[in-house]
């Protein structure tokens, strides 16, 4: 039997076992929405803005091991989606975006709601397709899913012109994909793995630096085993939090701009650094020249060869799927029957412990008068037993959540690390809650970020998503204010959030529960009560200290050992 292109597209999603599609209808996708209407397997979540559709698909993917799917119309539909796509691209999130396009015969004529979707998204997708023949839809979607999840994952766009979605052909879903120009690597080179193990065994001041790749590759167990076997210190980047348990004694905290003192110092002064699924980002190692001043050997494991030796020189490059590479490394280590010299390692740990003392751990001066934002996160951690899925927006609250919520499991910490997209938190939480219906989902946000996608409170109401929103409302774009205080002579240019809405009333207007918390003593009861409401979305508006800053801090352009602690100021 012949099916229309639209029916084929939906059948493909069924074949890929897609449970939820996040989207927004419009002229160019009307046939696809019609096909969606006539089946029940693939459920559609109607968002209130296309950016949110993509963030929701993103949160869905990050908190599971699945490919997120978004469906948008042509023109403004796809341009609104671009921020979401770029967010997913920067953090290597597997995603398929299906966009409608004006009819193929109208392409290039500046038709109504026409935009060159493939051209606009090219720099922020792993790959994209414009489907020109209905016969190509099934293969293209099959390839899109394969590309999105294999190798270094990423978003893939499939642009389908309206007429193509109404043409008919036989539906055959291919069993396999064969793209001759695309062959992601599996295992790592065994000679390099031998070299790496030797280097690790001989290290005097070793350091494990693990990033988001560990989480994406599902290699947290392997990483944990390796770190424990070697008894080395381990740091997880912002994207890698949960890849190694944060409550473990070998964990030294997050590195980089707002990392712990001990993580920064150990990164800087180690003699052998093994980077696993991390990319020596500017927010992690700071100034490249400063970082290179200290000689150290670097072993770099990554699925993407272009991540290796991009910013720093690497001594042992190993390209491969991290889970497989780490298994190879573990096997090699066991076969060697050797372990690092305990006495040498003890010296290094002594140094690290000294740094731990000097850094003072993550600390802040609590108050009985005004709510400290860090205190809210600490209470959130305690009350949820460290077991919630936590999404965040971007800014100070994001850093405090990353610092004070100790993630012991991967895929629990959901944030826009690479692109730094404000407005990510709430829609991402929707995707997380849908794929983990019984889980506790918290969205840590601020009064600035939440307003970038606050309309999604409506989506949450429609689909009964009992997310707990914790807004650290300090009336400022806090991170901007912090930089203005430190580097721009206290000139707070446009960082004060004037004319804020009454968030409690706003939450209520959307049909949710809103709570304003103004006293430190009310923080714990408010969070407890909110999380006890299993079936409700509760919006908590915490009036927090507007002068609080995020510490430690490695100022932009500075080196890791130039980290500023709170008491330095």
């Amino acid at each position: 039997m012949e099916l229309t292109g639209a029916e084929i597209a939906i059948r493909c999603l069924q074949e890929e076992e897609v449970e939820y599609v996040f989207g927004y209808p419009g002229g160019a996708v009307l046939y696809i929405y019609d096909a969606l209407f006539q089946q029940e397997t693939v459920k559609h979540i109607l968002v209130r803005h296309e950016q949110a559709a993509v963030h929701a698909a993103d949160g869905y993917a990050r908190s599971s091991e699945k490919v997120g799917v978004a469906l948008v119309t042509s023109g403004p539909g796809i341009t609104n989606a671009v921020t979401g796509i770029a967010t997913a691209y920067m953090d290597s999130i597997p995603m398929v975006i299906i966009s409608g396009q004006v009819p193929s015969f109208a392409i290039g004529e500046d038709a109504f709601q026409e935009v060159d979707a493939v051209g606009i998204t090219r720099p922020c997708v792993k790959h994209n397709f414009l489907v020109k023949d209905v016969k190509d839809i099934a293969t293209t979607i099959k390839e899109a899913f394969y590309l999105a999840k294999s190798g270094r994952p990423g978003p893939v766009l499939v642009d389908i012109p309206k007429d193509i979605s109404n043409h008919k052909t036989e539906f055959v879903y291919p069993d396999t994909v064969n793209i001759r120009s695309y062959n992601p690597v599996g295992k790592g080179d065994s000679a390099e793995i031998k070299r790496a193990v030797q280097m690790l065994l001989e290290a005097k001041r070793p350091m494990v630096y693990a990033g988001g790749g560990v989480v994406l590759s599902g290699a947290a167990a392997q990483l944990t085993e390796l770190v424990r076997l070697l008894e080395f210190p381990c740091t997880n980047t912002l994207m890698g939090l949960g890849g190694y348990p944060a409550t473990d004694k070998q964990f030294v905290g997050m590195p980089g701009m707002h990392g712990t003192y001990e993580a920064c110092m150990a990164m800087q002064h180690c003699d052998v650094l093994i980077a696993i699924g991390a990319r020596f980002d500017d927010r992690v190692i700071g100034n490249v020249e400063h970082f290179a001043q200290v000689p150290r050997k670097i072993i770099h494991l990554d699925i993407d060869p272009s991540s290796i030796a991009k910013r720093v020189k690497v001594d042992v490059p190993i390209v491969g799927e991290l889970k497989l590479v780490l298994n190879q490394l573990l096997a090699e280590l066991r076969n060697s029957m050797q372990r690092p010299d305990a006495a040498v390692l003890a010296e290094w740990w002594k140094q690290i412990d000294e740094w731990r003392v000097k850094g003072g751990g993550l600390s802040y001066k609590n108050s009985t008068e005004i709510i400290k934002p860090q205190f809210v996160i600490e209470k959130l951690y305690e009350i949820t037993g460290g077991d919630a899925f936590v999404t965040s927006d971007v800014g100070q609250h994001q850093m405090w959540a990353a610092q004070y919520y100790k993630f012991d499991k991967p895929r629990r910490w959901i944030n826009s690390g690479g692109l730094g997209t404000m407005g990510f938190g709430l829609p991402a939480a929707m995707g997380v809650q849908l794929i983990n219906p019984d889980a506790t989902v918290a969205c840590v946000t601020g009064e600035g970020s939440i307003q970038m996608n606050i309309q999604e409170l409506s989506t949450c109401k429609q689909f009964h998503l009992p997310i707990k929103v914790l807004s650290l409302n300090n009336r400022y774009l806090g991170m901007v204010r912090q930089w203005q205080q430190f580097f721009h002579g206290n000139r707070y240019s446009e960082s004060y959030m004037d004319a804020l809405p009454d968030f409690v009333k706003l939450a209520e207007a959307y049909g949710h529960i809103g709570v304003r918390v103004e006293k430190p003593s009310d923080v714990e009861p408010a969070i407890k009560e909110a999380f006890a409401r299993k079936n409700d979305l509760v919006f908590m508006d915490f009036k927090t200290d507007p002068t609080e800053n995020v510490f430690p801090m490695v100022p932009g352009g500075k080196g890791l050992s130039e980290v500023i602690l709170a008491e330095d100021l």
Partner: protein
Amino acid sequence: MRHIISLLMENEAGALSRVAGLFSARGYNIESLAVAPTEDPTLSRMTIVTRGSDAIIEQINKQLNKLIDVAAVMDLSEGKHFERELMLVKVSAEAATREEFKRVMNDFQGRVLDVAGGACTIEFTDTCARLDEFLQVIGRDQILETVRTGASGIGCGERILKL
């Protein structure tokens, strides 16, 4: 360092802009870029002339390989190779008849394609550097029009880039 990079990519709409977009997005420079389908009509072969430090060139190679449409990449500069560029030059017919001009043209193995009206069109095939040299010897004043294809490159002997 100047590098000549050869690549094979899917002969599909958009593939060229993926490569060009990569260079502009990442701030790599392109001195020239030549592209046409191969004996296999599904594949295009591109020759890119670029400049950069060893680290940049390594990144360029890796980033090109990462493009889904790119099937194979070879840095021709890493070994023996041939580099040829086609240049068409138009000079005034009067200038072309001068002995001095004829001598230089012969040195550079130019071939007159056509003399019509007051203009003479000449074809040259050589390395980019030799073509630059010709233009310098003749001087801008003598030239009515120039068009160059950019370098095409191929490995020497059995250094073959093929799928």
